[in-house]
């Protein structure tokens, strides 16, 4: 059985991920997909490269899913996050939650993606239309050593 949180170095099958969460106990399913967007912070973006500390990311991501099970009245949850080079429109992250009722499904889905964004060691390298690329380190002033050029 696939782990509840996984780092994927190749495109993932959303249908298969959803199917894994099907349950006779669940009357609701909510999912979130994060896609690669063509702009950020006023700059035109042509693609992204995600990097992860895979071992730690999978441990921390697994904790987030376990915590979601304890915090919300859900049946099951799973999350997959891509690493590697992604093009515009590519799915970067997927979160799915099955639950008895919709309130818990929506709430847990939102909570999981927020926790993943704040805690899991994954980094985004943005490639810009004007040339160059930069690592995003939110709140890490002094980090902005983009490899421009």
């Amino acid at each position, binding site marked *: 059985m696939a782990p509840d949180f996984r780092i994927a170095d190749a495109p993932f099958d959303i249908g298969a991920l959803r199917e894994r969460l099907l349950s006779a106990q669940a009357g609701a399913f909510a999912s979130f997909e994060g896609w690669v967007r063509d702009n950020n912070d006023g700059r035109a973006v042509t693609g992204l490269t995600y990097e992860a500390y895979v071992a730690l990311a999978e441990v921390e991501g697994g904790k987030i899913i376990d915590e979601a099970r304890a915090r919300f009245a859900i049946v099951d949850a799973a999350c997959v996050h891509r690493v590697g080079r992604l093009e515009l429109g590519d799915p970067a992250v997927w979160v799915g939650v099955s639950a008895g009722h919709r309130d818990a499904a929506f709430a847990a889905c939102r909570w999981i993606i927020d926790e993943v964004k704040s805690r899991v060691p994954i980094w985004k390298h943005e490639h810009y239309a004007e040339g160059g690329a930069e690592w995003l380190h939110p709140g890490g002033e002094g980090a*902005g050593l983009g490899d421009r050029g």
Partner: protein
Amino acid sequence: MSVTVLYFASLRDAAGMASEIVDRPASLSQLYAQLRARHGFAMAPDKLRVAVDGAFSGWDATVDDGAEIAFIPPVSGG
């Protein structure tokens, strides 16, 4: 008596390598200060988390011989 340091994202770019083996330091803070001076890391330690042997750790954790240490810059997944 050595440890392995892993670098990610902007720290990897600044160091010019994904990992290196260094002498076992007296503390994690001392190790980051040394590496920051050597590689010119711009990021102050209070912006970083630290992981030892694949788990998040406190900066005051003891550093054993052979440990695998990663300094974790602010994350940006999602």
